[in-house]
């Protein structure tokens, strides 16, 4: 097959049409609209960088950006830590290891919206019930303050995503050769040394993949945010994805929301590329 053959274009046509109409055209159209006063129906004209200048003074947007960053950093660390620990646990020769894998992975199959609702019940009802039995006041009214709302989201995401990351780490852990570990043991390396000097360098590529997945998932989070806290109290747990949605479809400020969306795209792209670049470099050195 050559690129000037008709069959080449016939094979490519359906996905090329879909990608163009669904992703590429809206992306460029969106960038164009972000420089106008578009209201979703029509534009009166160009406003230059006005929308962009305004959003750097927009406290609600800046707060959501800061909240999202904080949430992503904490979640990425926790999810990877728990995920790797679970992977180490279920790759030990346990009798229950197949069942454990199945259980830890399960939350990933259920949609974020539904998981958020389940946890809303756990935090508001079950935590309160448990708190009154053991006499811990602070378990009352979860999700009603900014900091507990933050930790609520972190707990939900860690519970959901650790199992996913576990599966990735398992794939790499199972590739670590038994001979290498035995050789290290014979040389007198203890369990910690074996982990640090043999296992860890060999699973480093898994770290790149899982960092990328957790980072992009937590940064773009919407469903769980919507169903767990709804952004409340007082928009304090509103993440960027939700802030953009509300600016667009809540306040119908379309061009302005689109400017936020363009900035969001730039941040996601830069963070993802930098992260992969740093991790790849680190892998090579090891």
């Amino acid at each position, binding site marked *: 097959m*050559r*690129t000037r053959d008709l*069959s*080449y274009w016939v*094979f490519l046509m*359906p*996905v*090329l049409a*879909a*990608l163009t*109409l*669904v*992703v590429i*055209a*809206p992306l460029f*159209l*969106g960038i164009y*609209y972000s420089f106008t006063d578009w209201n*979703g129906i029509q534009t009166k004209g160009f406003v230059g960088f006005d929308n962009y200048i305004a959003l750097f003074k927009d406290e609600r947007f800046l707060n959501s950006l800061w909240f999202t960053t904080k949430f992503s950093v904490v979640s990425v660390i926790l999810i990877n830590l728990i995920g790797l620990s*679970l992977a180490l*646990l279920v790759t*030990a*020769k*346990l*009798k*229950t290891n197949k069942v*454990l*894998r*199945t*259980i*830890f*992975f*399960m939350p990933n*199959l259920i*949609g974020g919206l539904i998981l958020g*609702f*389940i*946890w809303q*019940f*756990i935090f508001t009802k079950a935590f*309160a*019930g448990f708190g009154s039995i053991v006499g811990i006041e602070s378990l009352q009214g979860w999700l009603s303050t900014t900091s507990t709302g933050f930790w609520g989201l972190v707990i939900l995401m860690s519970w959901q995503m650790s199992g*996913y990351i576990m*599966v*990735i780490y398992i*794939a790499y852990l199972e590739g670590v050769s038994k001979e290498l570990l035995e050789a290290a043991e014979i040389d007198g390396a203890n369990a910690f040394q074996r982990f640090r000097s043999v296992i860890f360098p060999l699973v480093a590529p*898994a770290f790149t*993949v899982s960092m990328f*997945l957790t980072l992009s998932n937590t940064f*773009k989070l*919407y*469903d769980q945010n*919507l169903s767990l806290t709804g952004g409340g109290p007082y928009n304090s747990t509103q993440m960027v*994805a939700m802030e*953009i949605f509300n600016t667009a*479809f809540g306040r119908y400020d379309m061009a302005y*929301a689109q400017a936020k*969306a363009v900035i*969001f*795209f730039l941040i996601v792209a830069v963070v993802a590329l930098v992260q992969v670049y740093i991790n790849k470099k680190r892998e090579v050195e090891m």
Partner: protein
Amino acid sequence: MRKKYLIPLEVLGIFLAIVWLAPFYLMVVNSLKTKREIFEDTLKPPSSVTFDNYVQAFSELDFLRTFANSLIITVISVVLIIIFSAMAAYALSRAKGRISTIIFFVFVAAMLIPFQSVMIPLVTVFGKFEMLNRAGLIFMYLGFGASLSIFLYHGALNSIPRTLDEAATIDGANRFQVFWYIIFPMLKPITVTVGILNTIWIWNDYLLPSLVINQKGMETIPLKMFFFFGEYTKQWHLALAGLTLAIIPVVIAYFFAQREIIKGVSDGAVK
């Protein structure tokens, strides 16, 4: 790992499994209680089991129809993604050259674009052409799902030798026959992965249907769940029965295909 550590690790594993399942346990247990009993004690098992909540949730969610809506959208989208992504990846892997490299790069780069960045123009433009309906939604899933699928197929296709294509061509097969009868069957393992990843995503997607599906009676499970939950926000007995109903199909599917699902997800992330 030495043997003496195994028993404490086993105990730790079981403890963690209980922690992991606790939210589901609390959901199911409380969905079987009356409104009053949930209010009195959320942690205890129900004193007498009632299925009234389920009966009401089932009819208010219009569960069979909602389930069918989700199924139709997911199955058609996933089948189209599989067929068209495999075809595109085949063309890109067989016709090497600058054009293929650029197109492949555009597909991969599209994975970096967050949905929110294209959401607003997408919805307004599709709205203008009256495409905010089921067909439009499926077309959008094809566009958003193609990138990762092509990436996975492309990797698998590069390890299938071209001499196979050439042999079949000499025997008189045309492009489509070569692809359908020789190549596509060889891609079965990666097709399973592509199918699983896209099914999980599309079945659970909330945001896109919420923007696109605006006719009554067309709602998918997550979409219907959102409205249902909004209505019964203080009535946990009904809300929890609804949530349990929404999860049951997924749990059944997981029970039958857990090995394929976990392997598919792992292959999709690692390759």
